[in-house]
Every structure is written in C-alpha cells, then in structure tokens.
C-alpha cells in the first residue's frame, strides 16, 4: 500500500475521526466457558480475546514465590491477524510486549494474598490494526475482574502518537506506519497512575505534554467502557434500569 499524501485533511483523519477521537470500542466480559475470567474487545479493527486462569497452584514448583503470587502474561498474535501470515510462536516483539504488559497489570493486583500461586493472563490478538498491546491491557483488566481477582483499580490502555505533525489519540494502522511517533500508555484510571509507557518516534517536549493530556482523556473513555462491560455482565439489565 502507498502512503497517502496527507494523513490528516481539514482536521479529519483517514477514517473521519478528529485528532482526539477514539475508534469505536466494544467490550464484552465472560465470553469463554473454561477460563476463570475472560473478555473480548474490539477497538476499530482490533479484535482481542483474553483469558485469565488463577489464582492456581504454580507449576513448575521451583518458580513458586514464597511470599507472593506470580503473574504471568502471554501476548500472542494469531497467524491470520495481520496482512502477511505470522509464524506461530513467540518472537522478540511479543516477548517484550508480554513483559511490559505484565508490569502494567501488576500494580493493581494484591499478589501477596496468594503466596506460591500463579495467575495466568493469555492475550490473543485475533485481528490487528495498531494499538494491540494497549487493547490487550484493556481486555486483560476486564478479564481479571471477571475472574473475581481482587484489584486496586482497573487498568486502561490506549495509544497516542503523531502524524502530519499533529498529536493524535488512538492511532490506527496507517497512522502508526506512516506517522512520526507512537506512545502506548496504560493507566490506573481512578488515581491516574501510569503503569505502562513506551514511545518511539520523535516528540518535542511540548508535543510530549500534549500527548499525555490526550492520553489521559482517552483513558477516561476506555475506563467507562470497561465499567459498562462489567456492569452488563453482573447486573441484570432490568435491575440496572431501576
């Protein structure tokens, strides 16, 4: 595909969004039978499924921690999730993402409640269109809640970036590919604490501050959608109307 001459025309992005607009976001909790908790999220063309297992006994035993539960995360892309078929199995990118996603979720969990246990979070990217790691975090937080695991707060993720010199919320694939900067961020929304922050490209100090502003705005909306999804699962519709 060729890069279009401009990614932003008259203040509108290729898909018609304004710079501070999110793509359509749908979250559903409790979509799998076997998993202890699960969630399915669509953000634009991203389709992400997450399952949580645990707290459960840690195997192999020598990885048990005597004072805390161990959180394990696996971010994985389906072979058919991208334009060119991806070979199954972890690559360097997915290993790094699995690590930062784990570190983005750890701050909200009470891991000391479950010494010697393991909590597993499996993130499957079924269809990818930029922002998969942050969408994965958004889904993982809902799946953890669905599994009934006590949490200090949810974690919501979103990406901000820059294209054609404009700071943008929630990059789509074309903006990620041809834009000038990409900054995934995850936040505990209640107290606005940042648990994941990565960036590549270029930001002036001023653009960086704008990007943070925009990110916190986007996080609010993601958080609302997360809460709605959990309410939909646990509060019967009729009861909610009262």
């Amino acid at each position, binding site marked *: 595909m060729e890069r279009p001459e401009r990614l932003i025309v008259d203040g509108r992005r290729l898909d018609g969004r304004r710079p501070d607009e999110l793509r359509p976001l749908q979250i559903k909790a409790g979509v*799998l039978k*076997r998993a202890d908790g699960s969630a399915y999220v669509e953000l634009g063309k991203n389709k992400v499924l997450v*399952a949580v297992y645990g707290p459960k006994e840690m195997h192999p035993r020598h990885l048990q921690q005597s004072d805390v539960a161990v959180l394990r995360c696996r971010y994985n892309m*389906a072979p*058919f999730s991208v334009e060119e*078929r991806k070979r199954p199995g972890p690559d360097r990118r997915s290993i790094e993402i699995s690590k930062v996603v784990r570190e983005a979720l750890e701050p909200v969990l009470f891991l000391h409640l479950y010494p010697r246990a393991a909590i597993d979070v499996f993130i*499957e990217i*079924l*269809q990818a269109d930029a922002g998969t790691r942050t969408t994965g975090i958004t889904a993982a937080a809902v799946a953890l809640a669905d599994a009934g695991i006590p949490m200090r707060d949810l974690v919501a993720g979103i990406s901000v970036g820059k294209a054609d010199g404009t700071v943008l919320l929630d990059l789509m694939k074309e903006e990620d590919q041809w834009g000038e900067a990409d900054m995934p961020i995850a936040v505990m929304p209640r107290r606005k604490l940042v648990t994941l922050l990565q960036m590549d490209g270029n930001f002036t100090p001023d653009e960086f501050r704008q990007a943070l502003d925009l990110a916190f705005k986007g996080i609010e909306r993601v958080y609302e959608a997360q809460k709605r999804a959990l309410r939909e699962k646990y509060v019967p519709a009729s009861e909610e109307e009262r």
Partner: protein
Amino acid sequence: MKEMVSSVKRDYIVNLASQGKRLDGRTLDQLREIEVRRGVIGTAQGSALVKLGNTQVMVGVKIEHGEPFPDTPTSGILVVNAELLPLASPLFEPGPPNEDAIELARVVDRTIRESQAIDLEKLCIKEGEDVWAVFIDIYVLDHDGNLIDSSVMASVAALHDIKPPKDPEWTLPTFPIRRKPVAVTVAKVNGVLMVDAGLEEENVMDARLTISTLEDGTICAMQKGGSGFLERREIEEAYELARKCGEEIRKKL
C-alpha cells in the same frame, strides 16, 4: 492428554451411557448445537468461528505465494496448523504444538487433502517456481470436547468463505473449493458408542474413531485415538453414525 475425573463422575457417565443416555440429555447419536459464523477476521482471506456446544474453534485461512514441492511442481501447497491455545483449557500450555495439536492438525489436513476439496492443481502460478500456498490456522478458543469435528467444520467453512487475495497474479474467478468433507468422531464409553462427546465424556472414553466422509458416503480419512480397542462391529457401526451425522453437519457449512 486427559483430565483427571472423579470415579463418581465416571460411574455416572458410564451408567447413563449403558442406558443410552447422556449428561446433557442428548441421545447417543445426537450432536450438540452447531453455530457457524463466517467472515469473522478481516485480515484473513477466509475465516470462520464454529461453536459446537461450548467448544469454540476459530479458523483463519491465508493465501500467499509459495514454492512448490519438487515432486508436485504444478500443485498448490496446503499447510494446516493447529494451536491448542492456553486460553482454551487449564491443561493447554504455551509452547510449540504438542502431540495432541499435531494429531489434530494432521487429521484435519488429511480430511481436506484426501477429499480433494481444494483443486490444488488450479493453484499453480508458474510451474516449479511459484504456486499459491493455502495456510489453514486452527485456533482453539474454548475446549469443551470434540476438537476434531469442530476444527474440520471451521476449516471447511473458512475455505468456503475465501475471498481471493488482491494480487495481480491471482487470475481465478473464485477460490477452487468444491466439496465439503465432514469428520465425525465416535467415542466409545465402556463399550457404548456415542457421537460428539463433550469434554467430560471424552475424559472417560476408552477410544475414539474419527471417520471423515464426503457427500456420497465415501470415506476420505480415519483416525483411531485413545488407549482402548475397537471391535470390527463397532467400526462398522461408527461408519453408519459418521454418515448420518455427517449429513447433518454438512447442512450447516
């Protein structure tokens, strides 16, 4: 890989079976509810999500350029891969496909290949150099039993969903798929045969026999599994079940 089952549960299932009954109220020759959704993945040329009771299997098919095998220089390539994702069961672990995943992929492969459902000869671009490679990726999302039958269903549905790739070298009007092979796995539980075993039934079965058939009753693949044995009579009964239930499944695809 079987899950542990309590002996009470085992006895209960075995007892029911001996009376021709099952845990979820089905008859021995009754399938669970089947839901087939096509076109679920936009980045794949063809895709399908199959729900068979609570079992969920997604299949995405990608079509790419490939080099033909030296002994079949004018034939397209078919690759089937199955991932027993750790999301789908507490017993599935991350890592390369184990023997269960490999067996699953290979039984699906044989069912599709031997049925000649895909006309691979049409997928030649340049003899000996360039052909179309068809990648069938089976993604098991939720495991509540009978992964073989549901994976064949999802694969066949995804193949019939294929939109040709946007590539100047693709010259066929449509993807050359022409048949609907269907696998039916018959489980033997304490000597009783039943179709479409759920997970709890699988956990107590002695053996299983998968029979893949075509519209006309031709058998294109078989696979016995499990640590038990089958009598000849049981094999012939299994074929009758496979034929009958296969027709039912085929209507959904």
